[in-house]
Structures are given as C-alpha cells and as structure tokens.
C-alpha cells in the first residue's frame, strides 16, 4: 500500500496536520531559533581571526545546521508522537547500536571518540541517542505499574541507566553519561518509586560510591582528573589546570553591566578562553552583552523549559507527559551544568550549551526535541483519531 500525502491515507493525514497546525506553539518554535541565531553570532565573534588570515567557517556550518535542524523540527510535527510509542523499543535498540559503533569506529577528537564520520559530515551519536533514550525509557516506564516493582526497577536501571552510562563513559563522554544517568533516574522518580525501594536504592548508591567512585576516578583520563582538581582549587595553578575556570570568570566578569559590545570581546579571539565557541561560549556572550544580555539569554532558556513543563502538564497522555518532562529536564540540566561550569560553580565537564554552542548534531537533536515538545502540545486536545 502506498503511503504518502497523495494517497487517501495521506490526505487524511495532511488534514490532521492542518487542523493541528493552528495549535502550533509559535513561542516554542521561535525562541530556539532566536537562541541559535545569537549563538551563531557569538560563534562568529569568538572565532574572529586575530592570528589566522581568514575567519574560520564555524559560523557558516552552524547556519547550515540551523536550516537542517529547523527542517527536521518541522518534520517531527508531521506525525503524531504516539507513533514513536509503538516503535520505541526499536528506536532505543538503534541508539544503543549507534553508541557501540562509536566506541569501535569512532573518530578521535580531543582525546575522545565521540564522532562518527559520514562522508564530509561527522556527527556525534550520543546527541541522537539522547532522544532515543528518552523515548525508550518513557515507554518502558509507563507500561509498568506505578510505583515500580523491584523487577521492573532493576531491568530499567540496567537497560536505561547503567548500560548507556557505561557506553558513554567508555567513549569517554563523562558529562553526557552523567546527565543521561540523571535523566533516567528522574524519569523513574516521576513514574513513582516506593519509599522503601527509594531508601534501599539510596543506601545502595551510598555504599557503592567509594568503590564505584574510585573505579570511575581511575578510569578517567588525566585531563578529566585535572578539571576536577582545578575546580576544587582554581588558584592551584592559574595557567595550568585551573586556567580555564579562571579565564572563564574573567571573561564573564569583564562584561560588567552592559558588556563590551558585539565583536568587542577580547578573551575569545585572543585565546585566553579555551573552547571559546563550544563549551565556554556563554562566557563569550556574557563578555560582549554584559549582565543584561546574559539575563535575557537565560530568560529565553527559561521560556523553553517552563513551556516544556507546561506541555507535560497538559499532555493528553502519559507518554506525552513523560516525553515533555524528559526533554525539559534535559534542557535544564544542560543549561545548569554548562552555565554553572562557565561561571565557576561546577567542575569543567564537556557539555555544550543547547542551541548555542557550536556543534551540528547537538543542534539537530535539540531542535528535534523541541519539535517533539510542540508535537505533544499541539495534539493535547486530540483524544481519538
């Protein structure tokens, strides 16, 4: 049977889309684009040539990725998110395979194999995996009775918690590994864990921490250990391991109330700030736009997260609620960890700022996530179809 918008089924589907389209949340659609455009501007500024003869093309690539990502977001609106529920297990399986492939054939960058090369493009499977994990975990949880039984909790912890954590940690991508572990735990909590189970789990984690912590610590690369040591005491060696944190604080602080002005920042182009267009891009923005600009940016993130939580609240089914909660929480965590790190509140973990940091796969993944939010939101009144 032919399936497409020209078939009978396809015409019905187009009708449904059109009837739902007037309920598209324009705020959720526009705000990420604004943030991304600000991000591209900041990438341009941060990578301004000072020694190099030419402007690096990061900003152009990111613009291209914005177009692709926006199209992908529109794409996620063309089908009911319910269909994801049906194929959730397959999608999650696909995600795990992607992670495994990355470990074996991944391309090394910055001492980690996070990328897979596909012709001219290289992409980061862990970013795509994020969405697939959310879908898979949500489906698993809502098909189990609440509060979760011991057996389901154990299976959930292994399949959706520890396994992806281990694979990501192996890449090594400790930041993503920790955040996804956290998200899985949050989702389980939202589904409901009995008090006794929760207490036992907590005791188990506390008992496991010394052993597991040491295992994790010894498995860390030197640069990762240094980051943690530097966080504890940045003044140990301001040009060495504490350098990034100190320079990031200088970058943010020197922006003062109104900022140095667009293209007037110095810390990025002059290379005092490392990872200026990726992990530490918030600092570059704060330097040029100051306190006011930073607040506006944070407010834009706040709009997406709160809107996402609202979507979860009004979602027509539990799957939509779980998707929306998971996506909003992911944004919140990424924001918290990334901005907290640039402000010197948290140790340096290689986590990009959603929509803002340079990185195509992450942008694509974030726009698909927002697309899912909009999808859940616009179909909240459709009970049957």
């Amino acid at each position, binding site marked *: 049977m032919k399936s497409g918008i020209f078939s009978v089924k396809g015409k019905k589907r187009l009708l449904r889309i059109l009837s739902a389209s007037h309920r598209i949340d324009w705020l959720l659609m526009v705000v990420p684009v604004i943030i991304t455009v600000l991000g591209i501007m900041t990438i341009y500024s941060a990578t301004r040539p*000072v*020694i190099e003869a030419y402007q690096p093309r990061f900003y152009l690539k990111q613009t291209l990725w914005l177009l692709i990502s926006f199209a992908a977001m529109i794409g996620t609106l063309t089908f009911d998110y319910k269909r994801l529920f049906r194929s959730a297990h397959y999608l999650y399986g696909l995600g795990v395979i992607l992670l495994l492939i990355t470990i074996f054939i991944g391309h090394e960058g910055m001492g980690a194999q996070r990328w897979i090369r596909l012709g001219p493009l290289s992409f980061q499977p862990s970013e795509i995996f994020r969405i697939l994990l959310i879908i898979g975990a949500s489906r698993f949880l809502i098909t189990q009775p*609440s509060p979760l039984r011991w057996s389901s909790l154990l299976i959930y912890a292994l399949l959706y918690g520890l396994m992806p954590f281990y694979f990501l940690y192996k890449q090594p991508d400790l930041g993503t590994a920790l955040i996804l572990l956290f998200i899985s735990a*949050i989702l389980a*909590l*939202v*589904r*409901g864990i009995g008090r006794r189970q929760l207490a036992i789990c907590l005791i188990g984690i506390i008992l496991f921490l010394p052993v597991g912590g040491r295992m994790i610590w010894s498995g860390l690369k030197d640069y990762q250990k240094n980051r943690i040591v530097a966080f504890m005491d940045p003044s140990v060696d*301001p*040009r*060495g391991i504490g350098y990034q944190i100190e*320079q990031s*604080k*200088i*970058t*943010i*602080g*020197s*922006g*003062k*109330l109104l900022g140095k002005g667009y293209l007037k920042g*110095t*810390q990025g182009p*002059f*290379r*005092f700030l490392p990872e200026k267009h990726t992990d530490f891009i918030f600092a570059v923005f*704060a*330097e040029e736009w*100051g*306190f006011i600009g*930073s*607040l506006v940016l*944070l407010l834009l993130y*706040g709009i997406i*997260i*709160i809107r996402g*939580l609202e979507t*979860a*609240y009004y979602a027509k089914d*539990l799957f939509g*609620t779980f998707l929306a*909660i998971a996506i*909003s*929480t992911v944004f*919140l965590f990424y*924001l*918290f960890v990334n*901005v*907290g790190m640039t*402000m010197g*509140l948290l140790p340096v973990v290689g986590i990009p700022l959603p929509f803002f940091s340079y990185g195509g796969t992450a942008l694509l993944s974030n726009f698909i996530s927002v697309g899912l939010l909009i999808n859940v939101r616009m179909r909240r009144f459709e009970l049957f179809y």
Partner: protein
Amino acid sequence: MESKERAIRVIAFFTLLTGLVFLLRLWQLQILRGNYYLQLSHKNRVSVVKIPAPRGIIYDRRGKPLVKNEPYFVVSLLPKPPGKEINLSALSELIGLSVEEISERIIRQKPYSLEPITLKRGLRFRDVARIEARRSDFPGLIIQTEIIRSYPYGKTASHLIGYISHPHEEEVRKGKFRDLPKGSYVGRWGAEALFNDRLTGTPGVRFIEVDALGRQLHPIKTVLPVRGEDIRLSIDIEAQKAAEAAFGRRSGALLALNPKNGEVLSLVSLPSFDPNIFVRGISRASWERIINDPGHPFLNRVFQSRYPPGSVFKIVTGLAGLEEGVIGRNFTVFCKGKIEVGIWTFRCWKEEGHGITDFQKAIVESCDIFFYEVGRLLGIDRIAKYAKALGLEMKPGLGLSTEIQGIIPTTSWKKKNRGKPWYLGETFNAAIGQGYVTITPAHAALLISAMANGGSVYRPVLTIQKDPPEPVSKISITPEHLKALRTALVGVVNSEKGTGRRARSERFLIAGKTGTAQVVGNPSGRAATGPRDHAWFVAYAPAEDPSIALSVFVEHGGHGGEAAAPIAKEVIESYLSGEGWE
C-alpha cells in the same frame, strides 16, 4: 495524576532556583567584581614592554667620542606555549649553551611571565644567521637586538670614563632599578656613574596586544625612548694617552687641571682596568682576580692615596716665608749640607751643600737647609695656614670616587692626635714636605694650579666650564712675591742646575717643582736596594699665561726630577699643541 503534577512542580521549582543562582552569580561576577575582572582581561591582553633608551655618548673636550653604543644580538625564548615541548639538547647545540644552563634560565623566569627568557647575549651576525636558519624548529625562539656599550680607548682613562653593567642580581632582588627596562645598564664607575642620571635617558614603552600564548599580535601604542644626554668632558683624550704612555708600566697618578677654572684635563691612575670586560657581565673568577690584584687597579690613586709631598711642599713653605716677611729681599742661608739642632743632625739632599743660597736658588736647586731655616722662623702653624688656604687639607670634591683629605699638621693637631707637644725637628721635616705632611696627587695639582692662577683654588670638575667658577678658597699674594716664586719655578725646569731640567721643553716655557717622597724603611732615599722613593713633579705651562697645571706621581719612581718630570713634559706638550699654542 498526583505524582505527575508534583514532579512537574518540583522540576519547575528547580528551574527557577537555577535561574536565581545564575542571577546572583552573574551579579557577583559582572556587577560586584566587574571592574576587577575587566582589569584582569586588560592585563591578559596588553603586554607592556619597556624599551631601553640608548645611553648618551661621552665626548672629550675636543669632541672625540670616548664610548660607543654598538648593536648586538640577543637570543631569547618565549615562555613555553602550553603543550609544546622544545628539544633542549638540539637547542643547546644550536646556541652553544649547555642544557643545564638553558633550563636554569627557564626556571629562573618568574612563573606565568610572558616576557622572553634571555638565553644568550652579545651574539655576532654570523651566529645569528646560523640560528635564524633553524629558528622554525624551535617555536618561541626569538632574536632581538640590544645596544651594548664599548670603550674604544680600552684601559686608557678607565678611571675617568668608568664603565656600566646590568643591575646585579642582588640589586634586582632588593627592588632597585625596577623602573629600568630589561637589559638596561647602570653606570658603575667614573663619568658613567657620576653622570648616570643624565646619560640614562627615558625608556620607551611598547604596549602590545598578546594572545594567551604570549604571541605578540598588534602593537597598540609605542612611546619612543628618549636618548640619554650626551656629556662633553673637559678631558683631552690625546693628552691622556700621552700621559699613560709616558708612565709606561709604572704605577702612579696624574691630575692635570685647567688652572683658570678647575676643569680636569687628564686624570691617570695606574694600574687601571679595561672597562669593556664589565659590560657583558664579568665572571666571578675574573672579578676576584681584579679585586685581589696587588696593584689595586680599582684604587683611584689621584684621590685615594696619600703620600708625603717632599720638596713640592717647599712652594708652600716658600710662599709663607715671603708673605710673612721672613724671607726678605736679601735673605740668604749658607748650606753646608747639614745642620745640627741639639743632638739631631738634619741633612740637605746635596751632601756637599749649596753654599750661599737665596730664595731663587733654594727653589731651583731644592735646598733643604734653606727651608729648614725658613720653617724654623715661621713655625709650623704659619706654614699650615698657607697649606690649608691652598686647598691641601680639604677634600678636592670632584665626586668621581671617594676622596680623602690631606694631612697638614699643626701644634694643636699633634696634641690632639698624638698627645704630644710639637718639636722643632718636626717643623724642619714639615718644611720640606716630609714627616707628618701627606697629601694626595689631587692636592698637589690644586697647589700648583693656585700658583699658576695667582692663588685661587677651584673645585676640580669633569665638564667644560663656560663661566669662571667661584674659587673654593683664595689667597691674595703680593704680586712681587708671586713673581719671585714663579721665576723660581721656571728656573727649576729651565736653568742649568734646576732639579726639573728633564721637563724642559723646546716648544713651551714650563714652570715646575720636583719632589721626592721618602718611603718608610728607606730614610736616606738613595739606597740601591729596597723599595725606591716616590717621585713627584708639579708643573704648569705656558709659564706666561698658564692653561694647564698638573701633578705627576710615580710610585717608587725614585727622584722626582728623573721619573716624574719627563711625564709632565709629555702631557703638557700634547695638550698645548692640541690647544693650538704653537
């Protein structure tokens, strides 16, 4: 569903909490500490490099440069960019420094400093070409030019010109010369030290935008250094060369002054040193070799060593005798070679005696018996009065080095310093410049200069004087007494029997007086063995209108007329022919 709503509310709460934390942190970083971080970001970006100002040039009175500023090359290393290792053994081979020396210099650098680490100074063009060819193998290796001081006259006039060196490590530690740019020099000796402030100039400043690796990107602003002032000294380097050549390998001192204003025309203290060895930094071993040299090359004998003036002092005794009316128009003394006072016998240097001796003959032939008698008639205190008025006790005040006073004994001086009364025999000794009387070569120059100008003592100065300065002290001399004295001094050099015959010049009329300072342990002064006496000679010329007055002192030179007088002649001829007196 209960748990769903609660979960959403909790997450929303954490969202707001996160926002609040970020707001407070941003407030702290950007508003409360904004200025602090802004300064840090400027400091990050702008590197301030001081540019040393070229030192002024020192010229002699005829405009000949006594020092040179020469460019030379320095190899430095920029602080290691993070993650980039330098092959030290290859670098060591390239620039000819051991790996240990290179690492030591790198370690000595202040941590986190962006300033280049100086590896080696004083490279020649050939070395630089070799290094430049392989520079790309060593990121951070840079070649800069600096200016070095060189002293073309070497050991000549080294006490006068002096030398410079970089600030010593200890001085740097104590924070001295902090405002001077890296690689600056400080005057240490002679005119270089005396006029250091004027010669130094004002350093320039280069503000450079740098990146985190210390790479210099854009010059922001450059304030050019202001070259130090040029100094024109009063000395005549040709006369100086003539003087030092005339000394040969003997030790001694010479000070030539312009009697009209105290300008130093030439200053010799031998042995001396080569200032060039200090400029590039001197090793501890060579420093100790100089310091422990038995010839004391760093002793400025002109100002820092005191000797009995010998017969040179007869000028003072004679002048006092004339002015005090002791030596009348027909005053004569019969010299039979010795005189007895009580149980003591005082001898003339001429055993057979001078016979009937008047003032003229006494000066020309340097008769001791005559001045014993004049001394006896004057008494020590009246002699001392004239000696002090002629500047023999004061510190001369050139300021080139530490200076010592002359010792002019009086009755009260002896009571105070020796606790004993003054004896007549001591007056005899003092009258001919022996015994307690000791002066430096500088004092002798002041004395003869005062004779040349008619009684004025000027403070010696190293620079050309436009207006005649105020004399430090002035003694009014009866013109006919002055004339008699001057005639006698001309006779010393120009008459048949004059003790200073060997200073006689065919070209200029020279006036002078010889002196021989007895060396302790050799009272007779004529022993063939043991240390010889010191030779003195003071002179001025041309006798009619003197423009140079000088003292010559030759350590263990023997008789003044033989050792010191020819040197004076050389200097006078060299100076006056340069001045166009012929």
